């Protein structure tokens, strides 16, 4: 092999790549952040440049994506069966909190970042509801065990990964108020899981209804 040929051969690949990138740009002339073109570039069939220009372009996260858990509540419904929305906060009114404070999530948590105080009834007996529930998100390693092992589908993994903050000692310890999110939100970010869980729940309820009859 003549000296230098291998080098030129290597450069050929580099120039092909550059050309492919410009062809992609030309195809969407004037629309540099075209979402369709971006999706193609990022897919297994993409070629040319593959970087995402964050924050203008965002790579969509898959349904299984896990980042910092949240607690699920079922919103209060109005007569038509639609969730009631608090006019002041714009959030759905809390109907039932699914969490029963059983403590499995805090026991299974590898870095031990979940702290639970179990609620008590006025008579002083333990109540299946958390009086306090903290997640220290500085310590959370996003492993998803809490969501995986929760028997009540009460804790789920969020999709919101932009948690930058100016201060970490108080704002990075999430309490119940910050953690609670409605099933409407959950069904939006985890549509398949939601459909599966609802089907399971309905099947169980149907079985229950059948039994006494």
């Amino acid at each position, binding site marked *: 092999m003549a000296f230098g040929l291998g080098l030129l051969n*290597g450069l050929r690949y580099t120039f092909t790549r550059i050309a492919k990138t410009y062809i992609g740009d030309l195809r969407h002339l004037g629309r540099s952040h075209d979402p369709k073109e971006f999706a193609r570039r990022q897919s297994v069939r993409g070629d040319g440049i593959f970087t995402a220009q964050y924050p203008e372009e965002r790579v969509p996260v898959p349904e299984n994506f896990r980042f910092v858990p949240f607690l699920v509540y079922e919103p209060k419904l109005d007569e038509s069966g639609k969730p009631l929305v608090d006019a002041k906060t714009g959030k759905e009114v809390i109907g039932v909190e699914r969490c029963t404070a059983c403590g499995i999530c805090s026991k299974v948590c590898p870095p031990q970042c979940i702290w639970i105080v179990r609620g008590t009834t006025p008579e002083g007996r333990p109540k299946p509801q958390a009086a306090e529930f903290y997640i220290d998100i500085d310590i959370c390693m996003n492993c998803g065990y809490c969501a995986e092992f929760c028997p009540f589908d009460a804790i789920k993994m969020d999709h919101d990964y932009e948690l930058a903050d100016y201060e970490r000692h108080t704002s990075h310890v999430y309490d119940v108020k910050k953690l609670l999110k409605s099933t409407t939100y959950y069904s939006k970010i985890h549509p398949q899981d939601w459909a599966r869980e609802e089907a399971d729940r309905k099947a169980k309820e149907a079985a229950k209804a059948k039994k006494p009859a």
Partner: protein
Amino acid sequence: MAVNPPPPPETKINPNDPQVVAEKIKTVFADAVESASAQGIVVKSDKLLDVTRYLRDKLSFDYLNNVTSVDYPDRFEVVYQVSSMDRGGAPLTLKVNAARENPTVPSLVPVYRGADFQEREVYDLMGIQFPGHPNLHRILLWDGFEGYPLRKDYKEPYYEEEKKPFGTRWDQGHHVIAEDRNPWHDNVKYPANFDAMSYKPTQEIYPTLGLAEATSTRLRTDKIVVNIGPQHPSTHGVARLKVTLDGETIVAVEPVLGYLHRNHDKIGERNTYLQNIPYTDRLDYFTSMSNNFTYVIGVEKLMGIKPPERAEYIRVIMAELTRWQSHAVAVGFLYNDLGAFYTPLLYGLEERELILDLFEAVSGSRMMCNYMRFGGLARDVPEDFLGKVQYLVDERLPKRTDELEAYLIKNELFLARAKKVGVLPRDLAISYSTAGPVLRGSGVKYDVRRAEPYSIYDRFDFDIPTGTTGDLYDRTIVRIAEMRESLRILKQALKDVPAGEIMTGKKNYQIRVPKGEVYGRAENPKGELGFFLNSDGSPNPYRYHVRSPSFINMGALNEMAVGHKIADLIVIFGSLDVVMGEVDR
């Protein structure tokens, strides 16, 4: 060169069986063996060197897989795993007892040079002396460190309780910030009467000075010591190379490690078995799927369970995709080290992104996958997953592999820099306990997937690529060839992924692991990753040790680099493909 035969059938005598080997040892050294069982051979401390020499020379146990130690209430135990490169099969376990007061065990460095770093680690973390070791001082911790952290009575700075889960979390879990529990100035323990201003390291800072005479006769030069790193882009993380130079020629290299040390072993002993899985992701963060895989194999061995077929296939698919992307990045980074900044690397990274996209869709995270469970997988793959992998394996990745090879390996500039650089001869590669592409680059046809097939690797048809001279070029070629073999395995695996369950038994967060001891290992992209687990029947492992291929491969760096120029050192270091998360643990 002998080819690893498949493991002998049950009826034949297994030459690696501890009891069989113990009988053979007894015929030569009558009183050397204290006891022998399926768990291993307990050897008398003063006969250890004789026995290992006999094992190496006569029974061809020429490879030291792993050295670790266990702290029992009444004694210390040093555990060795040795195996044969030619014969393959399960490694043989040797054990040596040491007294609680002043524990000493003779050093194995004269027999296996790979014992060097591993014995230093045992000394560092468990405080066992190894007389006969050429350079016995702390390796992961600093010289003035107080105490031996892996001993059971040691309590780390943010110590809360002996074992997880901590009782303070539930049901009266009033949150306390870790820094409030242990203020920042209280979180370091100094030796008694420690004064930072007058502190002098016990170890000579530059022990490599004056090692050899200056080579040039015309111009007399002094030897100088240069520290490369810890903050240096070519050290692949935070490693420091203490290099002694004669002009520009390397006289000696000593890696200084531990900048990322967090005592993974101790964390693992505080954790429950299940809680360790996400921690293994953080060892070699390029290959988290295979780390999960290996750890899960180890615990499953101990529990005596097997995952369902579908889970086995998906595990293999994940492990082989991981191997492909890890090697692509390794070759890419090698080019960074050679001075071809970022363009070749990004070509490797692009394909890696696509594989990570798949991992993310499956497991929920790109790098910290946490996907395997004992007896199966965390969840089934999404519907379109197998189709996407099929497209990658059939269409895209083979082309990219060829491209990577064509523009890199056929390039004269690369050939000039890679041929006959960083040579590690076959016998030294074995002696230094190197693993993975480094070992195979030196011409040793050894791959755990063939030597001791785990999971379902015995069903696939693939070759073990090897090099001939053991130079940098061979190691790179082996990586590229292994990428092709991975694709071959993937093609076969994708063809018959069965439908069905992905988990044996019910998912449970409280896992029962019976009493026992196991060394689970698998062929990771970087080499043989091993997990030594000792269970006392409780929910937390009694002893948890990681045999890290990157760490042990680093032991051969000095051998490869001496005599080369300093620019070559960077490339030789790059060709080891180490990840500091795994080296320092």
